[in-house]
C-alpha cells in the first residue's frame, strides 16, 4: 500500500495555502474594470482559476487573463462588494492568492474562442498561450457595449509600450479611458528598455505614450516562468489578427450576438489566421486531438467563457454540428479545493472547482442544473424553477 503524504507537504509552491503578494501594477480600462498584475507564484493554465483575498473583505475566485514573465494578470469587473473593494487597491497593496485551481482549456490547433463580457478574460490568456504555441485560432469576443470589452485592448501593457502594433483594425483607440496607475515608490521605466520586437513593426506604433507610460516593474522572484516567449510581441499580433468583436449595441465591432459569429466561422466567413511561421508548437506542445496535420485555417474546436445563456447556446451549436466543445462555467465557490460541496453540479456531482470550471461535453452531459438559478452561499437555490427542475417523483423514471 502506497503511503501518501499530505499533498501540500511536498514541493513548493504550496499552492492551496494562502500566500500574500503585492499588486505590481493596475491597468484601468474604464469605470469599474481593471487589470491587476501580480507575481506569478505558480504555473497556471488558461481556464484554471485562482482566488484573491482582501483581508477583512472576502476571498473570491477569478480567472487569469494574461501572463508576462513571472507575472499574472487578473482582469476584474466591479459587480459585487469584493470586486468593488478591490477597485480601491493600489499598486503595492498586499493581496492573498491561492491556486491554480481546477482544469483549464485544452490547447489545440483550430480553436474557436467564444467569450461574453468579462468572460473574455480567461480567453485572453488562452489566446496568448495559443499564440505562443503557434496555433491558429479565431476569437469571437462579445460584450454589451464597447466599455464591456475595453480591457481586450491591452494584451500585455508591460510589453506594448515601446513596440509597434497596429491595433486600429479591431481596437480604435480611445484617448482617455485607459490609463496605467503608477506603482508607488518605483522609478519610471526608461524608454531604452523593452526593445524586443520593435524592429519589424516599427512605424506602426500608434499607442499613446502618455497612456502607456509604465513604471519600472521588475517582476519579483519568478520561479515558475515556464513560458518565456509570452513576452515576444509577435505573439500578441496574432491575437489581434484572430479577434472579432461583437457588441449588443454596435458600439464596437459588429452589432449582434457573439454566437451569431460561430456559424460564420465554421462556414468560413471568418477564416482562422494561419499559425505564425516559425512557431515552436511542435517542440513545446503535445498537440491536441484536432491538432497538427489539419490546415491551420480549419476550425475544429470551441472554447467558451461568459454568461451561461451564451455558453448554452454555444453548446447547442456545437452539439448540432458535432464539434468538440469546452466551456467555462461559474458557480458560487467557497473552498476552491473540492471540499465544501458548494459548486457541485446537480446531476453528476461534478465539483466545478476541481473537475471544472472548464467542462467538456462529456462532463456537461449529465448535468441537470444548467437552466436553474445558482446556489447561494447557503447552498440554497434562489428560485426553484419548477418547470425545469426534476421532481423527485420523476427521478425514478430517469436514467441516472
Amino acid at each position, binding site marked *: *500500500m502506497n*503511503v*501518501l503524504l*499530505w*499533498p*501540500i*507537504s511536498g514541493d513548493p509552491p*504550496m499552492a*492551496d*495555502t*494562502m500566500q*500574500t503578494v503585492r499588486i505590481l501594477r493596475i491597468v484601468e480600462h474604464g469605470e469599474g474594470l481593471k487589470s491587476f498584475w501580480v507575481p506569478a507564484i505558480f504555473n497556471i493554465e488558461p481556464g484554471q482559476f485562482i*482566488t484573491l*483575498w482582501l*483581508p*477583512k473583505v*472576502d*476571498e*473570491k475566485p477569478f480567472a487569469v487573463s494574461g501572463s508576462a514573465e513571472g507575472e499574472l494578470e487578473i482582469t476584474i469587473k466591479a459587480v459585487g462588494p469584493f470586486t468593488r473593494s478591490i477597485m480601491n487597491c493600489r499598486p503595492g497593496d*498586499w493581496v*492573498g492568492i491561492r491556486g491554480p485551481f481546477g482544469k483549464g482549456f485544452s490547447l489545440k490547433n483550430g480553436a474557436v474562442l467564444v467569450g461574453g463580457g468579462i468572460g473574455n478574460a480567461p480567453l485572453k490568456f488562452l489566446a496568448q498561450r495559443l499564440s505562443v504555441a503557434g496555433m491558429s485560432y479565431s476569437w469571437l469576443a462579445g460584450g454589451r457595449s464597447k466599455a464591456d470589452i475595453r480591457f481586450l485592448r491591452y494584451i500585455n501593457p508591460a510589453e506594448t509600450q515601446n513596440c509597434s502594433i497596429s491595433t486600429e483594425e479591431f481596437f480604435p483607440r480611445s484617448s482617455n479611458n485607459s490609463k496605467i496607475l503608477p506603482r508607488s515608490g518605483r522609478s519610471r521605466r526608461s524608454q531604452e528598455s523593452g526593445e524586443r520586437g520593435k524592429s519589424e513593426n516599427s512605424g506602426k506604433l500608434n499607442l499613446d505614450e502618455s497612456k502607456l507610460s509604465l513604471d519600472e516593474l521588475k517582476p519579483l522572484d519568478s520561479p515558475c516562468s515556464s513560458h518565456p516567449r509570452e513576452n515576444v510581441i509577435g505573439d500578441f499580433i496574432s491575437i489581434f489578427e484572430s479577434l472579432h468583436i461583437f457588441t449588443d449595441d454596435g458600439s464596437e465591432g459588429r452589432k449582434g450576438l457573439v454566437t451569431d459569429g460561430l456559424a460564420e466561422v465554421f462556414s468560413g466567413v471568418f477564416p482562422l489566421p494561419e499559425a505564425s511561421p516559425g512557431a515552436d508548437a511542435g517542440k513545446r506542445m503535445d498537440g491536441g486531438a484536432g491538432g497538427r496535420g489539419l490546415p491551420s485555417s480549419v476550425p475544429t474546436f470551441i472554447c467558451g467563457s461568459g454568461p451561461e445563456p451564451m455558453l448554452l447556446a454555444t453548446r447547442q451549436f456545437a452539439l448540432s454540428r458535432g464539434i468538440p466543445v469546452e466551456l467555462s462555467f461559474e458557480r458560487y465557490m*467557497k*473552498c*476552491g*479545493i*473540492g*471540499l*465544501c*460541496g*458548494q459548486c*457541485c*453540479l*446537480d*446531476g*453528476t*456531482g*461534478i*465539483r466545478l472547482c476541481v473537475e471544472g470550471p472548464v467542462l467538456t461535453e462529456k462532463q456537461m452531459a449529465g448535468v*441537470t442544473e444548467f437552466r436553474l438559478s445558482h*446556489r*447561494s*452561499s*447557503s*447552498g*440554497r*437555490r434562489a428560485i426553484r424553477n419548477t418547470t425545469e427542475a426534476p421532481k*423527485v417523483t420523476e*427521478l*425514478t423514471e430517469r436514467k*441516472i
Partner: protein
Amino acid sequence: MNRLATDLCGIRLESPLVLASGIMGMSASSMKRISEAGAGAVTTKSCGIGERKGHPCPCVIPFEHGLLNAVGLANPGIEEMNREISEFKIRVGKPLIASIFGKTEDGFGEAAARISLSKPDLIEVNVSCPNVASEFGLPFAADADACGRITHMVKERANGIPVSMKLSLQCPSIAAVGRACQENGADAITAINSVGPGMLIDLNVRKPILANQVGGVSGAAIMPLAVRAVWDLFRAVTIPIIGTGGVTRPEDALQLILAGATAVGIGSGVYAYGLDIFSATNAFLAQWLERDECSSLADIRGSAHG
C-alpha cells in the same frame, strides 16, 4: 463474501467508511458521487431550521498538516436539505446520515423532528461545531449534562430514527460525555469533530487568514487525537462509535477500527488523498483482513484494547 460489511445501529453498510459531515454533503448528486466512490454511507452537511450563509471566505485553508475551516454551518435549511435527502434516497440505495444542529437545546429537538420527515437512516447531532462560538457560545459538547438533555430531546422527536451524537475532544472527559449520551438513549457516538478552534496568521498583512479568524483544525494533524478519543469512548460506552478525524490514509482508518470504531468517517482525507480514498481504504482493509485471516471487521474492532 464482503468482509467489510458493517452493522451500524441496525443499518447495513457495505463498507465501514462514511463521508463525514461538512464535506461535499450539500446535494444529492455530490453525495451520490461519494457513494459511488466507495463510501458505505454519506453524511449531509449540518443543517438547521433556517437557511444560513455561513462565514465569509477564506473559510477553508490548507496548511502543512491539515485544514483549518470556519464554514460556519452554512446550509440551505432543513426544508431544502430534505429535498436533497429524498432525492438521494431515490437515486442511491445506500444509507444516508443527516447531520443537524440547533442553537438551543429545544432547537435540536425541532431540527430532529423536521429532518425525520425525509427519513434519513441515522440522525447525527452536531453539538460540537468549533467555529460558531461567537454566535452560539461554547459547544454543547463541552458539557456532559447538556449533551444528555439534547440526546433525550432529539430521541423523543426523531420518529424512531437512530441518533448519533457528534462529540468534541474539547471537554474534560469525552468518555463522560459519551456515557451521558448513551444513558439518554443515543444509538451511536460520532467522534471527533474538528479540533480547536485554531488560527493561522499571514505574515505580510499581519492578520488572521480565516475571515472568522478562528476555525476547526482537521486533517492529518488531529488523527492521533481521534484515535485516542475513540479509544476512550470504546471503554466508556457500548453503543457503536463512528470514528472520525484526520483519516488521510487507508492505514488511519484501520487504526480507528482497532481503537474501537464501528464505522470510520472520512472528511479532510477527500482533499489529502482525493475521492479515491474510499476505494483505496476499502481495498486496504479487505487485504488486511484477508492477510490476518479475519472474516469481518467485527473480529478486530477494538482489538487494540486486548
